[in-house]
């Protein structure tokens, strides 16, 4: 038995997993239209390579990755590109983003694609394939997978995240139960990339069927499936690494700093679709649950509107009050059911006042430190709140604001019902904005100083040129006139002076 480690704090919210995990997953039918934001990952926005009116095939490249931290976007089905335009997307800022609207033709005609013999590929080539297939971390952070596996060096442990610690979400659970063999094939590819000595899959012990399925699929391989105690947020990357290996990702660092690399099981599945079938990332498993008739998991094309999925789950029950995309601890709320699901969307929860009662108005913090007791980063949330509220950003940073993983455990237990995480997000964005402003100001100052310097230099150069010109003119004059004439002039002057004094 492997010794498991613990992290500080954590909470036990009601799981609400059985609602959606009982039914097998189903494939969602083609929607009327697909809306594909270009920016579905952390990093630079990919560049669209199609135009409105283009006919595209299923799996065809729509936008290619720009730079190292970027990922491509592909057509989830065959059809016509209707437009490339700004459209509302699911983002806390509410700002619209560039989206490709695709009208399916219903034929599902694939581009040419074939399985890869990845072992014959050099690592760099395989990473390029991942990038061009648009594969990103599907646990929620959507960090491009090729970039993650590109930087590692001396990796001892590959950790697969099947913890799925957020309440209500069951996509990884169903995926592991139903497609364990494919996931393990994907993991083998990741092992090949990471060259890790050991490979561990962490699954919370509230998913016994998934654990059993994965254990069976891993039999005979070097991959170890580990049941971990159910405790939110054990699925946080740093927390899971700590539980399984005892190592702590350093503050401000990344897992590879301690020789670990971590991917979600759903990402491994996406890698298998690429390597085993040549398919780019165009679909994913999504839980549709909450105030719907039949909560269930669906394999959904990226870009499908929320409303289509809610309809698939039997439709909204009376009393619905909006949608949470993601889990109830870290998800985003929207009232717009026309928004599409993207690569990072793992769950749609239809809200109701009964399931998600509106919080009481916030009271002042009474420093009870229940937040500090549950903080998985062992921060002092009450101090961070104090500093964020006072806009004392320097202090907030020195109390390790940026080690906050925004898991929401602090707000969950706060007797004063303070939306703590909102304050931390606000403080972080203020700090980022300040840094951008500072950089911009520095740049402007440098430019200004350079301009002054250039003007000064030009002036000097001009003056020098002028002086030289005058000197040259004088010299030329002198040379032309000869020395005698000057002597005569001098004599004439002297004579005139003498005459004047005599008068």
């Amino acid at each position, binding site marked *: 038995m492997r*010794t498991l*480690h*613990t*992290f*500080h704090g954590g*909470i036990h*919210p*009601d799981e609400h997993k059985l609602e959606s995990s009982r039914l097998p997953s189903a494939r969602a039918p083609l929607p009327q239209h697909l809306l594909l934001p270009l920016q579905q990952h952390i990093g630079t926005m990919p560049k669209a390579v199609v135009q409105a009116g283009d006919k595209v095939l299923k799996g065809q490249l729509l936008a290619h990755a720009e730079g190292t931290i970027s990922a491509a976007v592909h057509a989830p089905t065959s059809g016509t590109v209707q437009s490339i335009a700004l459209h509302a997307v699911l983002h806390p800022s509410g700002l619209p983003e560039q989206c490709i609207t695709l009208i399916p033709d219903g034929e599902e005609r694939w581009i040419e694609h074939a399985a890869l013999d990845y072992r014959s590929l050099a690592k760099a080539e395989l990473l390029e394939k991942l990038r061009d297939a648009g594969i990103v971390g599907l646990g929620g952070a959507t960090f491009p997978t090729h970039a993650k596996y590109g930087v590692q060096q001396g990796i001892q442990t590959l950790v697969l995240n099947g913890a799925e610690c957020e*309440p209500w979400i069951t996509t990884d659970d169903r995926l592991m139960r139903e497609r364990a063999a494919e996931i393990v094939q994907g993991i083998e590819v990741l092992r090949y990339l990471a060259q890790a000595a050991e490979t561990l899959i962490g699954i919370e012990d509230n998913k016994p069927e998934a654990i059993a399925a994965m254990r069976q699929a891993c039999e005979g391989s070097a991959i170890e499936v580990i049941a971990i105690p159910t405790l939110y947020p054990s699925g946080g990357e*740093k927390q899971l690494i*700590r539980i399984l290996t*005892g190592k*702590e*990702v*350093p*503050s*401000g*660092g990344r897992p590879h700093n301690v020789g670990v690399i971590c991917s979600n099981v759903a990402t491994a599945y996406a890698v298998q679709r690429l390597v085993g079938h040549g398919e780019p990332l165009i679909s994913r498993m999504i839980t549709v649950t909450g105030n719907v008739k039949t909560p269930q998991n669906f394999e959904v094309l990226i870009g499908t509107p929320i409303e289509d999925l809610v309809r698939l789950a039997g439709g909204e029950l009376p009393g619905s009050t909006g949608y*949470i995309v*993601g889990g*109830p*601890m*870290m*998800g*985003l*709320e929207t009232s717009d059911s026309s928004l599409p699901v993207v690569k990072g969307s793992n769950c749609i929860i239809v*809200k109701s006042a009964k399931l*998600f009662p*509106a*919080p*009481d*108005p916030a*009271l*002042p*913090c*009474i*420093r*009870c*430190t229940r937040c*500090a007791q549950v903080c998985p*980063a*062992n*921060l*002092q949330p*009450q*101090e961070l709140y104090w500093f964020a509220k006072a806009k004392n950003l320097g202090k907030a940073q020195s*109390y*390790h604001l940026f*080690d906050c993983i925004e898991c*929401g455990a602090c*707000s*969950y*237990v*706060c*007797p*004063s*019902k303070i*939306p703590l*995480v*909102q304050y931390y997000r606000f403080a972080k964005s203020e700090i980022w904005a300040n840094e951008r402003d500072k950089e911009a100001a520095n740049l402007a100052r440098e430019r200004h100083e350079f301009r002054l310097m250039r003007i000064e230099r030009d002036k000097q150069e001009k003056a020098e040129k002028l002086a030289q010109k005058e000197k040259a003119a004088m010299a030329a004059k002198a040379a032309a006139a000869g020395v005698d004439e000057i002597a005569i002039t001098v004599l004439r002057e002297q004579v005139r002076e003498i005459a004047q004094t005599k008068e």
Partner: protein
Amino acid sequence: MFSPFISNATSVQAIMFRVLLALVPAIAVYAWYFGPAILVSLTLASVTALATETVMLKLRGRPVMPFLGDNSALLTAWLLALSIPSLAPWWLVVVGTMFAISIAKHLYGGLGNNPFNPAMIGYAVLIISFPAYMTHWVAPGGLGQASMTFAEQLGYIFGGRLPSGITLDAVSMATPLDTLKTQLHSGHAMAEVMQMPIYGQLGGHGSEMVALAFAAGGIYLLASRIISWHLPLTFLLTLFATAGIFNLLDPAHYAPPLLHWFSGAAMLGAFFILTDPVTSPTTVRGKLIFAAGAGFLTYIIRVFGGFPDGVAFATLLMNLCVPLIDAYTQPRIFGQPGKSGQKGKP
């Protein structure tokens, strides 16, 4: 609305209510041994606290209802009423409570922002301004030279009238801690003092039962996770250890540690006053330092200071240190170099 969308928090109102609830057994025992006058001062303090809270909230332009319902003013009122003699004139309770709520709480920014425990500020103001009235503790049943009916007590509290033939000294008496101090001072040995009828098995006759009831309420708060063990246990252990050392060195002149536990406000302080989250440190190590300091100071003030009990001043002195303690006891955060602070490390 923003994530998280779920909560299992016990509200501030509920926390304060449970603390009030935990005081009820001690109030009942108090009334049993010392008469119902305590219920009068509790009521007076409560009404004054709620009225002052309302006025202050209005003056500060804050919404009245959410704050008036948070039970925090009520808790301050009860703690103060339990700290002063029940047979005190009505205005003493009113002045103390008004000062606690208006000056010590609201002028510092209201709920959550006061650096000092408001009830202890109220107590300190009263004992410094009206020391004579603060010594008229009702003698426990049967120990006074005379006793008053409830109606007579009301007459004294609200009108200052004593029944004919009864003096205040006849119905009141010094507290066990006060008696101990004066007796030891006048040259009596510990064993001799303990023979006096006002002492019971653990502390003062009657008051030891009240202290036990406070402890019972405190254990309820611990069990229901309203408070953590750090503050009460460290405070009581430090008080015990300090008293124990002096008692071991010179048992004739220094009271045994159990007497210190069950006399005065030790139990009230340990479970209900030090544990005020607003005025105590937030870090675990900070809590240990704070409570140890309060325990030590309580003993020093009791034995060597000018006041019979030391809990209030020890609390206020340690309240003063909280920002410093917090700043210097920040825990190691996840992923920081240094000793791993995680529990359950194999």
